């Protein structure tokens, strides 16, 4: 798509005649020519400047969900990388189970009080997968109501967990991530760690069935230990309109310092895809089938969690 439609249309119409720019400031600026290969620093500076120019002139593309790949790759993902590589030392298993193209639904367990597990999974499928895919996550409406966070979530390509959006993304061939336990999973007390909660109402399964995409079960070990939730101040949560107000060994006692996640060692395992094709038409509306498939996905993740836990000696050393 042309970024300067008016000017381009004018050029097409004149068909060989000389084009006189009426508004020189609106003609696409000549891109600064790439200089001779200079130092690494120069290259990065040039990149940063070009990025800044694109932002200041609004010359970038977003999709209808508001996904802004330019911003995601240049600004949103980089700060997550040190956390991924150095802090949690995330190890990924079975990334080849995530298809390189076409729609697929990644379903994972949820834990850790704050959804860092979701962010780390997004880094995993972008950085460690050869196709460098973007994980389009389905989030609670709370996320999109919050200022800053809601806007950033949209720009990172995430959207509200609802069937129309899930199906639209999957039909468009996107890789969609969902955490069906929701707040029950992420906000569960530390003593219930690695015990899967109810998997919603199976909406994600019917979305996969309707669009015929595979379900990739994903098991995340390590996220339970980042903020061990040992208490919940309910009145405060109600006051702030949050699903829970966590108390961890470090929060809120140490203030902002308590917000630093404990450096647990993480493993993210992607299991074998569960196909959803081959069912009759209308399978998505068969509650029994949806229920069984939901259970199958849940069981797969639970068994993988137990196996990974049995192989782990120490939560922080791995």
């Amino acid at each position, binding site marked *: 798509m042309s970024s*300067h*439609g008016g000017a381009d249309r004018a050029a097409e119409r004149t068909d060989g005649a000389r084009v006189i720019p009426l*508004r020189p400031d609106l003609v696409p600026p000549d891109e600064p020519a790439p200089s001779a290969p200079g130092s690494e620093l120069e290259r990065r500076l040039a990149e940063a400047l070009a990025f800044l120019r694109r932002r200041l002139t609004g010359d970038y593309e*977003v999709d209808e969900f508001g996904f802004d790949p330019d911003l995601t790759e240049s600004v949103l993902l980089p700060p997550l990388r040190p956390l991924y590589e150095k802090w949690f030392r995330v190890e990924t298993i079975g990334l080849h189970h995530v298809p390189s193209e076409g729609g697929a639904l990644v379903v994972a367990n949820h834990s850790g009080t704050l959804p860092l597990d979701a962010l780390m999974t997004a880094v995993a499928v972008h950085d460690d997968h050869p196709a460098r895919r973007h994980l389009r996550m389905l989030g609670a409406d709370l996320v999109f109501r919050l*200022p800053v966070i809601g806007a950033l979530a949209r720009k990172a390509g995430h959207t509200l967990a609802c069937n129309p959006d899930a199906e*639209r993304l999957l039909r468009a061939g996107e890789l969609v991530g969902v955490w069906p336990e929701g707040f029950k999973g992420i906000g569960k007390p530390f003593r219930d760690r690695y015990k899967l909660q109810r998997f919603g109402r199976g909406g994600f399964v019917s979305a996969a069935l309707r669009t015929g995409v595979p379900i990739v079960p994903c098991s995340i070990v390590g996220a339970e230990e980042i903020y061990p939730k040992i208490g919940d101040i309910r009145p405060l949560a109600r006051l702030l309109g949050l699903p829970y107000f966590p108390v961890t060994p470090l929060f809120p006692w140490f203030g902002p310092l308590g917000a630093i996640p404990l450096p647990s060692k993480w493993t993210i395992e992607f299991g074998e895809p569960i196909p959803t094709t081959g069912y009759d038409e209308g399978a998505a509306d068969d509650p029994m089938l949806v229920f069984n498939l939901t259970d199958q996905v849940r069981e797969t993740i639970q068994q993988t969690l137990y196996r990974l836990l049995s192989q782990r000696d120490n939560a922080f050393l791995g």
Partner: protein
Amino acid sequence: MAPRIVLVTGVSRFLGGHLAARLAADPHVDRVLGVDAVPPPPDLLRRMGRTEFVRADIRNPLIAKVIARAEVDTVVHASVTANPHGPRSAMKELNVIGTMQLLAACQKSERVRRLVVKSTAAVYGASPRDPALFTEDMASNDLPTSGYAKDAAEVEDYVRAFARRRQDVLVTTLRFANIVGPRVDTVLTRYFALPVVPTVLGHDARVQLLHSEDALAVLERATLHDLPGVFNVGGDGVLMLSQAIRRAGRVPAPVPAAAVGPIGRLVRGARLVDFSPEQVRFLNFGRVLDTTRLRAEFGFTPRWTTRQAFDDFVTGRGLRPLVGARRLAAVERGIRDVVARWS
């Protein structure tokens, strides 16, 4: 069935006036009657050719006589507006009560065969609890409770009731995304024309736009053909609010949510922009329409994408950027040259 005698409401405004002009230029249409409470501006009147202007308020029962006496067979209701000349209460009067009167007149008439209603995407509201794209059969989880959006929702209710009572009339409801164009003056175009554009801190809406030429083409097509139903009408793609402000060469000024109310009252007093609660929600969350039905059933593909429509508005209005793209590129080259020399 081609329409013979068409009545268009709201002809003193952009859409109604230009639609009347297009219909007047169509030899298949015998008569075009334009209705509005105020006469059209001279330049619009010139374009409208053989359109017969009826100065009447659609809230007045006179409208029924006009429809009956002229044997109108097609009514285009294009006067529902978010950009009234008067205060908010007058806008509601005009939108809702006017529609009621017009529909009552249509119901009485034996001749009316087709009704085209210009509605708005505002009926979907704007909230973080709704799907990213609206299809025609979705209703918002947070229905608009005030302002223009509520008017539009009520107007559509009356139109649905009318369609039930007069099943022989083909009713087309068009839900337009925000219309922009070089000659269009709306709340949103005035907003983007501000040198410093206030936004709500921490929010960035997805904005879908519709070029005024596409809007007119859709209205004209609905008037001339049998295309009953509800259709979303919007350009392809979206712009982020902040991106659009940048593309217009303006500077966004994020305002903390708590300060939006007082500032809104201030600028409303100054008649600059609309910062009503409903508009603020739109500026926070935006809304995007699914236009599959428009393409597949209505048979129309917008010629301008959202981005092209916006750029055409910026060029056509002659908005002079505060920060020109060319100057930025020059600055960029300058910095790189300096660094290259020093390293």
